[in-house]
C-alpha cells in the first residue's frame, strides 16, 4: 500500500468515530470513541513522514499516543466515577439530526479543502481533520452535560492534531510537546472543575448554569 492510500485508509476510522460520537448516547462509549480516535490520529505523523523515521516524529507519536490513548481516558473515567451522574448524554439536538449535521460538516470540510486547493494527496485527510474539529464543536454546542463538552474539546483537539500532521509537520518538537502539555493541563483542569461543579450543583448539566446573564 502506498502512502496516499494508507492515509486514505487511516481517515476512515476517524470519520466513522466522528459519526459514532454524534450518535452515542452513553458517556462511557464517548470516552472510548474519543480515545480510539485519538490513538489512530496519534500515529498519522508516521504515515505522512516522507523520509526515514525521525526521532522527532517518533517521540511525538509516542507522547501523543500515550496521552490520547491512555492518560485522557483514564483521567476521564476517574472523574466519571467520582461524579455520580446518570451516564446518559442529554442532547439539545436529537441523534439523527446530530449525525446529519456531522455529515454536513464533512461536506463543508470537503468544500473547504477544494476551495483552499489542498493537493489531492492530503485533501481527504484534511477534510477528515476538519470534520473532526467540527464534530467536536457540534458536541459542545448540542450536548447539555459539562462532561460532553470536555469530550467535544478532545475530539476537536484530535482533529487539530491530524491537521498539523497533514499540513505543517515541521515545527520544533518542544513546541509540539508544549501544545500537548497544554491540552493535558486543560483536560486536567476541566476534570477538577467538573468535580467542583458536581459538588456545587449536584449535577453536571450546563443548563443549570443560568444565574449569570443580563
Amino acid at each position, binding site marked *: 500500500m502506498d502512502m496516499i492510500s494508507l492515509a486514505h485508509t487511516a481517515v476512515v476510522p476517524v470519520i466513522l468515530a466522528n459519526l459514532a460520537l454524534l450518535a452515542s448516547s452513553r458517556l462511557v462509549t464517548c470516552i472510548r470513541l474519543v480515545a480510539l480516535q485519538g490513538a489512530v490520529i496519534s500515529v498519522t505523523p508516521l504515515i*505522512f513522514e*516522507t523520509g526515514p523515521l525521525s526521532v522527532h516524529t517518533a517521540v511525538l507519536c509516542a507522547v501523543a499516543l500515550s496521552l490520547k490513548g491512555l492518560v485522557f481516558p483514564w483521567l476521564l473515567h476517574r472523574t466519571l466515577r467520582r461524579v455520580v451522574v446518570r451516564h446518559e448524554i442529554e442532547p439539545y439536538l436529537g441523534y439523527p439530526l446530530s449525525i446529519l449535521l456531522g455529515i454536513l460538516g464533512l461536506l463543508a470540510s470537503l468544500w*473547504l479543502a477544494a*476551495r*483552499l*486547493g*489542498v*493537493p489531492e*494527496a*492530503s485533501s481527504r485527510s484534511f477534510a477528515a481533520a476538519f470534520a473532526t*474539529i467540527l464534530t*467536536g*464543536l457540534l458536541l*459542545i454546542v448540542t450536548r447539555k452535560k*459539562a462532561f460532553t*463538552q470536555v469530550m467535544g*474539546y478532545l475530539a*476537536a*483537539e484530535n482533529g*487539530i492534531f491530524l*491537521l*498539523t500532521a*497533514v*499540513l*505543517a*509537520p*515541521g*515545527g*520544533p518538537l518542544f*513546541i*509540539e510537546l*508544549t*501544545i500537548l502539555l*497544554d491540552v493535558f*493541563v*486543560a483536560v486536567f*483542569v*476541566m476534570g477538577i*472543575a467538573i468535580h*467542583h*461543579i458536581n459538588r*456545587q*450543583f449536584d449535577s453536571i448539566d*450546563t443548563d443549570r*448554569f443560568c*444565574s*449569570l446573564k*443580563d
Partner: protein
Amino acid sequence: MLLAILVILPFLLGGAAFLCRSGPSGRGLLVTGAGAHLILSVAAVFGRPDALFGGILLLDALGGLFLLLTSILFAAAAVYAVGYLSREHTDERRDFQEGAFFSNAPQNVFIACLFFFLGSMTLVTATHHLGLLWVGIEATTLASAPLIYFHRHHRSLEAAWKYLVICSVGIALALVGNILLAAAGGSGAPDTESSLYLGDLLARAKAMNPVWFKAAFVFLMVGYGTKMGLAPMHTWLPDAHSESPSLVSALLSGALLNCAFLGILRAHQIGAAAGLADFCSPIFIGLGLLSMATAAAFIIGQGDFKRILAYSSVEHMGILSLAMGLGGTAAFGAMLQAAAHSVTKAMLFLLAGNILTAFHTKSSHDARGVIRALPVTGILWVAGFLAITGSPPFGIFLSELTILKAALDAGHFVLAAAYLGLLGLIFCGMAVPVLRMAQGPPTPHIAPGPRGEDPLSVGPPLLLGGLSLLLGLFVPSFFNDLLTRAAALASGM
C-alpha cells in the same frame, strides 16, 4: 538571557508560592516577585536584549509595550492583593448575594496561579514563535480559571467553567489558524519547511498563498478574538469579570485581553506584509463596531457595576479592533488606547473591589454615596469613569481622538458618526450608574473602618489613575517612541 529569566522567573516563583504555606510570607513573595518582574521588564523593554533560542524569544516594540503594561498592572495588583488577601480568610463565609455559605481557595494556590498567569502572559509578549504564543495564551486561560474560582461559590464556578470552555474552544480555533498559516507559506502542500517563526513568515509573506492566509486569518481572528472579548464571542467576559476577585478582573481586563490582541496583531503583521491588509480591515472594523454596539446595548440599563466595567472592556477591545482596521495613524491611536485602557480599567476594577468590600453588593442601586463613605475611592471612581469614557484630560481621550481623526481622514464619515454615537451612548449609559453610586447620602452603616481607607487598597488605583492622567497630559518621549515603533510594527509599516 534577560528574556529567559523574565519568562521563567514567574513560573519558579509560582512553584515557590505553592509550597509556601504561611500567609504573610506568601504575600511578601508576591510583592517581591512582582517588583522584580517590573524591574526586569523595564530593563528588557528599554534594553532591547538579543533574541534567544534562534528567535523563539524575541522582544520587539509591540511585545515590549504589552509586556510593560502587563508588568505594571501586575505590580499594582500584587500590592493590592496584600491588603485583599489579608482581609479575605479561608474560613466559611456568607455570600452576600444569596446568603449561601462558601469559602475561599487557599492563598498559596491563588498566589501560585497569579504567578503562572504572569508567566504565561510574559511568554506571550516575549515570543516570536506563533506556536509558542498560542501555548502562552492557552496557558493564561488555564492559569486564570482557578483565579476566577477563588471565591468557591456556584456563581464563580459557573463563570470559571464558561470561561474555560469558551476560551479553550476559541483558542483551539486559533491553533487551526496557526496551522493554516504555517501551511500558507507552502501553498497548502504538506511542507516540512513551514515554520511559525514570525520572522520567517514575514519574510515569505509575499509568496504566500492568499486564500490560505485568509482562512488562517479568519480562524485566528475568531480564536484570539474570543479571548480578546470581541462581540459576539465576548460572552464569557462579563461573567468572568464580575465573579472573579477584583484584582483578577483588573489583570484579565488590563493585561490578558491585550495579550490576545497581540496574537491578532501578529497575524495582521503577516497580512500587511503579504499585502492583504485590505482583506483584514473590514473584519477588524466589522467586529470592532459590533463590539462597541454590543457593549453600548449591555451597559445601558446595567445594574451590576462590575459587569458594566466588563462590557466597557468589550467596548474598548472593539475600539482597538476598529483602529487596526482603519490602519495608518489609527494604529498609533490603538497602541495609545491599549496602554491607556489597561491602566484605567485596572484602576476601575481595583476600585470596584474596594466598593464591593465596603458595601457587600455589586448592584449600583444599593451601593450609594461612595464619595461620602470612601472619599478616595469615590473620587477616583468618578475620575476613572471620566477617563474610561474618553474625557480629557485623560489618555483615552487622545487615543480616541486620534482614531476618529484617522477615520475622518480616510473619509469614513458614516463610520466616524457611528463611532462617536456609540461612544456617546456608552458615556450616558455608564454615567447613570456610576454617578448614582458615587453621589448622594451613603447606604447606612457603611464606614471605611476605624483607620479610614486602607492605603494598600487605594494606593495602587491612585497610581494607575495618575498614569492615566499622565498619558492625557503628556506622553513622555521614550514612551511615545515605544508607541510609535509598536504601531509601525502592528500596521506593518
